[in-house]
C-alpha cells in the first residue's frame, strides 16, 4: 500500500510524461519540441528516483537533460532559418502515423493487459544497488560484471568523438 503522496507524485509524473511526449511530437516549433523533450526527460528521471535508482536518475539528468538537450538546442539554432522553423505536415501522413502508433499502442498495451497478472506486482522491498556495487560491477570481469561492455562503450564514445570532429570539421 503506497502512500497517498507517492500516488499523487506518480500521477503527476505519469501525466507529464504522457502530455509532454505528445506535445514534443506534435508541436510545430522545433525549439519547443526540444523543450518538451527536456520535460519528458526530467519526468523520466523522476521515475528512476521513484524506483530507487538514484544513480541512474542522476545520470539521466546529467547526460540527457543536461547534455543532449543542449546539443539539440544548439543544433536547432544553427540550422533553422529565421521564420522558417515550423513545418507543415500533410494531414494524410499525420493520420497514417497516428494509426500506426495507435496500432502499436493497442498491440503492445493489449499484450501488457494480457500479462496483467504477472505484472500486478508491487515494488519489492529490496535494496537497490549502491554506488559501490555499481562500480564493482562495471570494473570486473567475473559473472554479472561488465568490464567488456564498458570498454566497448568507451571505444564507441571515442569513435564518436573522432567521427564528430571529422564530420563537423570545415574543409
Amino acid at each position, binding site marked *: 500500500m503506497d502512500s497517498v503522496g507517492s500516488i499523487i507524485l506518480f500521477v503527476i509524473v505519469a501525466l507529464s510524461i504522457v502530455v509532454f511526449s505528445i506535445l514534443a511530437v506534435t508541436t510545430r516549433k522545433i525549439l519547443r519540441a526540444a523543450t518538451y523533450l527536456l520535460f519528458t526527460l526530467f519526468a523520466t528521471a523522476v521515475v528512476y528516483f521513484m524506483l530507487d535508482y538514484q544513480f541512474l536518475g542522476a545520470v539521466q539528468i546529467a547526460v540527457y537533460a543536461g547534455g543532449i538537450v543542449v546539443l539539440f538546442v544548439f543544433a536547432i539554432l544553427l540550422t533553422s532559418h529565421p521564420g522558417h522553423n515550423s513545418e507543415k505536415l500533410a494531414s494524410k501522413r499525420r493520420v497514417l502515423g497516428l494509426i*500506426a502508433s495507435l*496500432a*502499436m499502442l493497442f*498491440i*503492445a498495451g*493489449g*499484450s501488457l493487459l*494480457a500479462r496483467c497478472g504477472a505484472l500486478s506486482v508491487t515494488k519489492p522491498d529490496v535494496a537497490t544497488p549502491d554506488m559501490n556495487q555499481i562500480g564493482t560491477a562495471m570494473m570486473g570481469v567475473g559473472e554479472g560484471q561488465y568490464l567488456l561492455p564498458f570498454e566497448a562503450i568507451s571505444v564507441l564514445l571515442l569513435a564518436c568523438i573522432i567521427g564528430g570532429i571529422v564530420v563537423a570539421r570545415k574543409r
Partner: protein
Amino acid sequence: MSPVIPVIILALPLFMFIFLGLCGSKMKHPVAGFLGTLGLGVVMVLSYYTAFTYFFSGAPEFISAAGERLQCVMFDQTWLQFTDTLYISLGFFLDPISAMMLVVITTVSFMVHLYSLGYMRDHHGVYEIGFQRFYAFLSLFTFSMLGLVVATNIFQMYIFWELVGVSSYLLIGFYYRKPSAVSASKKAFIVTRFADLGFLIGILILSFYTGTFDFTLLTSAPVEGMSGVYHVDINTAEGILSTFTSHPAPVFMGASVLTWALVLIFMGGMGKSAMMPLHIWLPDAMEGPTPVSALIHAATMVVAGVYLVARLFPLFLMEESALVIVTVVGALTAFYAAVVACTQIDIKRVLAFSTISQIAFMMVALGVARPEHHESLGYMASMFHLFTHAMFKALLFLGAGALIHAIGSNDYTAMHGLRKHMPITHWTFLIGCLAIAGIIPFSGFFSKDEILSACGSYSTLVYIWMSLVAGLTAFYMFRLYYLIFWWKEHEIPAGHHAPHDQPWTMSLPLIILAAISCVAGFIPFGKLVSWNGEPYDFMAHFDWGVASVSLAVAVAAIALATVMYRKENALPAKFKNALPNLWKWAHLRFYWDELYMFITHKIIFNGVCRALAWFDRHIIDGTMDAFAAITHKASDVIKPMQSGQVQMYTWLYVIGALLLGGITILCLM
C-alpha cells in the same frame, strides 16, 4: 637388304624439306635448287637400287622358291598406339607395286627438279620469288608421296595421304599473290579433304571389323569358310571378333559393311584421283607452276587413288559390288573427261582432263580385274598404265611448261606453228601424244591395249565404251598438238625474240622422258607386277584382235584430228555450230563447278553457316543476354524500395512489426 636404305629414301627428302625450309631463304637461289636436285638424285639412285634389288636380286625375302614375289616389310616402327591391336606404325613396305611406284615417283620427281632449275626463272635468268621455297615444297611432296606408297598400314597411308594433300595445296598456291591460285589451292584441298572424310570413315569401319590397320593382315588370303573380311587371325583381334561373330551378318542399309568400308575408302581415292564427281579441283589445280602439275597432278599424287584400290585389291575382290562401283565411276569419268578435253582452250586444262580420263582408265582396269580373267589382267594393266602414263603425261606437261615458258600464256590461241621454233619440244611432245593415243610401239599402246583386253574379257559394253574413250583421247591430243605446233604462226611483234627452245636443264628431262615413253612398252611388266605376285606373261596371251582394233580406232581418230585441225579451216566451227549446246556444255565442263558453287556457297555457306551464326548470336547469345537483361529489369523493379528515405524504411519496419505482433497476439488468444 638392310633397312638403312629405305630409311634414307624417306628421311632424305624430309631433311631436305626442313633444311631448305629453314635455311633456304639465306641461300643463293641456285644453291638451294642444286641441293634439292642433288638430294633427290641420291634418293632416286637409292630407289632404283631398292627396286632393282627387289625385282632382280632373287633374295629369298623378295621372291619365293616358286617364283612368287613376296611382300616384305623392311622396317616398321610403332608411331601411335590406339589399342593393343590397333596402332599406327611408320614403315617401309616393299612389294611389286610399291617398288614400281618408287621408281616412278623418284624418276618424275628428279626430272621435275631438274626441269624447274630452268623453268622457275625468266628469260633473263632472274629466279622466281620463293625459288627455295619451291624446292622445299617439292622435297616435302616427294617425301609424302614416297611415304604413301611404302605404307605398311592403311593409317600410314592416310597420314601421307594428308601430307601429299597439303604439299599439293602449298604448291598449287605457290603463286600466292594470285587470287586464282589461292582459290584453286583452297578448292583442291577442301575437295580432297571431303573425300578423305570418306576414306577415314572407311578406315574406321574396316579396322573395327578386322581389328588391324596392317596391309599384310588386311590383304592376306581369306580363310576358307569365312565370309567377308573377318578372316584376320583370331589371336590378334580376339575381343572385337567375339563381339562381332555373336551377331548376324553385318549388313547396314542393304549393303554389307565391307561394301560400305570399301566404297568409302574408294571415295578417298576418288577425291585424290579426281574421279567424277570429285574431279572439279584438278583442272583448277593447273594454277600451280607447270612442273608441279607434271609431278603432282599428272604423274604421282593423282594416281594415289588407283594405288589405294590396287593396294586393297584382295579386299575389293571379296566384294563384287565395290568393284562394280569402281568400274562405273571410272568409265563415266573417262568419257566425261575426254569429251570436256576436246573443247578446252587452255592447254594445261586439256592435259588435266586428259589426266582425269587416263586415271579413270586405270580405275576401270582395276574394276574389271578378276582372278578368273587372265589372272586379274586388269590389275596388271592398271599398274602398267600407271607407269607409262606417269612418264608420258609428265613429258606432256613438261613440254607444255616449255611452251608456256616460251610464250607466256596457257592459251593455244597464243601459240600456233611453233614446230619450227622449238624443235625439241615439238618432237618430244609428239612422242607424248603418240604414246597417249596408243600408237605402236610407244608405251601407251601396250598398257592401253592391256586395259582394253581386260575390259573385253569382263564385258563387251565396257570394252566398246572404253575403246570409244581411247579414240576420243587420240582425237583431243592431236587436236592440241596441231593447234600448238601447226597452223599459221603469229606475227612476232618488233623488238621481241621469236620463241625458242629451252636451256638444257629443261630439255634434258623432256628427252629422257620421251625416250622412256618410246621403250617402256617393252618392259615385261607382267613378270614383275601382278596381283598375287605370280609372274604373268602378257605376251603369251597377247590378243591381236583387241590390239588391232584399238590401233585402228586411234589411227582413225588421229586422222580425223588431222583433217579438222592441221590447218585453219571451217570444219571445227561447223561442228561447233551443229551441236552448239553440247559444245557449250562441254566447254563449261557440264556446269559441275557451278553446281558445286551453288551447293557450297548458296546452301552450305549462306544457308547453313550464316543461319547458324545468326542463330548463335541472336538466339543462344540472346538468351544469355536476356538472362542478364531480366536480372537488370528485376533489379530496376525492386530498386525503388531502397528509396533512401529512412522514414520509408521505418514504415516498412513498423508495418512488419505490427503484423508480427498482431499475429502473435491472435495466436496467443
